[in-house]
């Protein structure tokens, strides 16, 4: 299974040998068993069970089991058939033709046809937070017969073929949605789809219960009888659930990092990294380029000279991350520029740059004092800020760590712009146009829009590279554009990318074949089976 990892990640994983040896999908050789209940632990309650109207992680987790996508993806994001069995893209990238799987029925017995595909793509283009961009160039979806959908584009969208996974672009039943507001349609609370599992109940504050769809289009699947998706907000409680066997599986490292060492000693647990390649994140230090300090390139370069990423990953992330200098995560290996930062660890150089920028050491040897905010989603935010406070104190910059909850953080950074320095994270997703462009494109400096260009970075050359790459049909040229873009960002440091977090799926060893695709447990999980 180590063969699946690219060299950069292998380096990280070398220290996690137990994980690589015992984990993963190595169980393919065994004969799958039927029956049983899978207990899937997630952190928070989703607000809908159909992810066509939101991209919240909790919704992505629960959606694909019921509402499937046109395609699935191998670990290196090559498309595989799901609801579409064949697909062709015209050489100019303007016409996509999908042949649909015959004899597929929704859970209410109605057939799945090209009309549903046309409706779904139109809906995603109108209401989905990312679909508005992903499908922006879609002009029409033609349906010459019930099993053929032809998507016609006004301009190429080279990332589109990677966006058709179940959770990202779900195919919904037109007969239930037509003429309604998709956001308030009750189908979100009790979904009907084509998937391997049927909706049974949603007990608010507790769990969602799915049961086996006996009429699934693949007669051999699914294998389990029931799937319980349990909402467990307390990380300690999740650790205990894995420990005592009441929880079978959870993903995106569902326990506190500090608990991992202890849990790894337990014989009944398996730790795997398969099925995490559909979306990579980067964690970064984000500057407000309107700040009186960080508008100076030399100050930003000085900060970059102070950061020991390897030490940060070791201390804050307990080693569960890959050092990264570029805004494009190393996991996106088709696009990641592996060039090192020109700003090596050098406190003397940092001091010199700060002096040159006009911020000499003053009273008490302090140059200036700034607050630092952090995105509170994970427990790494506060620790990174404390790391930065210690580091920057060495060059005479005093950091005051400010804590707030998620909406307060979002308002401070993206609406009020009342910040100097933050620790933040960006999801790169499956393509830089979808996941990275929004952060650096000057036209996406939009007050009030979370995860837009929060630094207020504005470089016409970068804008042009991003815009050209978004419609460039030649993969080689496109990659070159992204490489140049990354080089500029690494040198101009509008933010400082620190690392790509390594997410673990934790599961009981009785669970098999849970993550055969790039999107892992966010996919339909039709193959999963349990030892009796």
């Amino acid at each position, binding site marked *: 299974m180590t063969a699946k990892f690219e060299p950069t990640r292998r380096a990280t994983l070398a220290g996690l040998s137990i994980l690589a040896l015992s984990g993963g999908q190595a169980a393919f050789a065994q004969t799958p068993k039927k029956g049983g209940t899978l207990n899937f632990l997630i952190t928070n309650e989703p607000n809908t069970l159909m992810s066509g109207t939101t991209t919240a992680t909790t919704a992505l987790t629960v959606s694909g089991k019921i509402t499937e996508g046109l395609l699935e993806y191998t670990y290196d994001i090559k498309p595989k058939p799901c609801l579409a069995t064949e697909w062709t893209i015209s050489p100019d990238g303007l016409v996509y033709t999908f042949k649909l799987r015959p004899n597929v029925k929704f859970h209410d017995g109605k057939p799945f046809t090209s009309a549903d595909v046309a409706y779904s793509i139109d809906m995603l283009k109108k209401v989905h937070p990312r679909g*508005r961009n992903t499908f922006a160039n879609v002009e029409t979806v033609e349906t010459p017969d019930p099993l053929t959908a032809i998507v016609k584009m006004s301009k190429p969208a080279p990332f589109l073929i990677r966006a058709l996974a179940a959770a990202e672009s779900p195919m919904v039943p037109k007969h239930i949605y037509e003429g309604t507001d998709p956001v308030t349609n009750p189908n979100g609370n009790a979904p009907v789809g084509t998937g391997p599992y049927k909706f049974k109940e949603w007990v608010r504050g507790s769990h969602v219960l799915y049961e086996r769809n006996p009429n699934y289009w693949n007669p051999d699947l699914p294998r389990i009888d029931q799937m319980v998706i349990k*909402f467990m907000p307390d990380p300690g409680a999740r650790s205990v659930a894995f420990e005592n066997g009441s929880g079978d599986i959870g993903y995106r490292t569902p326990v506190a990092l500090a608990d991992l060492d202890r849990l790894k000693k337990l014989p009944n647990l398996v730790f795997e990294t398969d099925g995490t390649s559909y979306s990579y994140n980067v964690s970064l230090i984000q500057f407000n380029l309107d700040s009186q300090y960080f508008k100076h390139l030399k100050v930003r370069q000085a900060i970059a000279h102070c950061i020991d990423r390897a030490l940060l990953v070791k201390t804050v992330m307990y080693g569960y991350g890959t050092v990264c200098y570029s805004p494009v995560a190393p996991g996106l290996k088709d696009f990641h520029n592996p060039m090192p930062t020109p700003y090596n660890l050098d406190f003397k150089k940092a001091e010199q740059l700060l002096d040159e920028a006009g911020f000499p050491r003053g009273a008490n040897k302090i140059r200036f004092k700034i607050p630092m905010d952090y995105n509170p989603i994970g427990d790494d935010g506060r620790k990174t800020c404390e790391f930065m406070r210690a580091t920057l104190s060495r060059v005479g910059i005093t950091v005051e760590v400010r804590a707030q909850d998620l909406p307060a953080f979002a308002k401070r950074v993206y609406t009020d712009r009342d910040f100097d320095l933050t620790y933040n994270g960006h999801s790169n997703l499956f393509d830089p146009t979808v996941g990275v462009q929004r952060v650096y494109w000057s036209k996406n400096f939009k007050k009030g*829009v979370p995860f837009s260009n929060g630094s207020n970075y504005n470089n016409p050359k970068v804008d042009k590279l991003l815009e050209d790459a978004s419609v460039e049909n030649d993969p080689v040229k496109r990659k070159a554009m992204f490489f140049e873009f990354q080089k500029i960002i690494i040198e101009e440091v509008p933010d400082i990318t620190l690392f790509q977090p390594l997410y673990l799926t934790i599961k009981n060893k009785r669970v098999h074949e849970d993550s055969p695709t790039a999107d892992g447990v966010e996919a339909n999980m039709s193959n999963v089976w349990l030892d009796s």
Partner: protein
Amino acid sequence: MGRRIATTLRRAAIHAGPTVLGIVVLDFLFLQLMPGDAADVMATEAGSATEESMAALRHQFGLDLPLLSQLGNFLDHLAHGSLGYSPRFNTTVLDLILQRLPGTLLLMITALSFALLLGIVLGSVMAAWAGKWPDRLLSVVVLLLYSMPGFWVGLMAVVLFSVKLGWLPNDGSETIGAHLTGFAFLADRLSHLVLPALALASFFVAVYARLVRTSMLEVQRQDFMRTAQAKGLNPFLIQLRHALRNALIPVTTVAGMHLGNLLGGAVVVETLFGWPGMGRLALEAVLARDFSVLLGVLLLSSLLVIVANIAIDLLHAWLDPRIGEA
């Protein structure tokens, strides 16, 4: 007695209206001070947003309206008996709350009953042997319970009973998808209830034990106690009928006030034990800035406290017929 109940109810009704209205309006205004709104939460959770999606979210939550219109809308709904609608959960607030209310009530009543029962027993024992070794020993136990936070007691109980011994589940209110019936169903629910109820009750056990001890000792010195002893009544019956009954007045008063505290404690305990109750709903609503849900929870909680106070008033009338006669 009948007139007494009518008076209590009438007085409570007159008080309840303005109290509830004040709570709702104040809560609504205070909540506006929190930075960020429901649309910010939805967008940050999603990790992606556009100007259009933000505008759509704000419109959906009614956040694009002026503040006073939002308050007016809420009160208008309330006047029509509706708690409003939660766009976040795509369902009515009443539905959300009614799904959670039984869980919280079960947990609270179990915890309160447990705390009262154990507290009264411990307190009586301590009073009966005041100054002797059982009193001293129990005083230490009570002091420990009093000073340990409930969530810590809960955590330690989880470590012992769920992790080490494997006797009790640590999460949820039932075994999901097990389709149990009859005795197995009851046993399953009970086993899930034990740990959270203990965690919630531990602090209150200590409070009631100390309170009962003090009141009992005070009652012992009363004239009627001497009379009862002089009459030659059974000492146990004297303690039960004369001492305890009088000592219960302060205990019930405090227990009534604790109902509000229990609701607050439920937030922590429900989160810790994954118990699907209102406390967690309230916490989630705060974090999600889903104010329609939060206002609904607060409104219902204040009603609950008012109802509890009425019940305590009536209980007092039964325990001591002199109260409220004037």
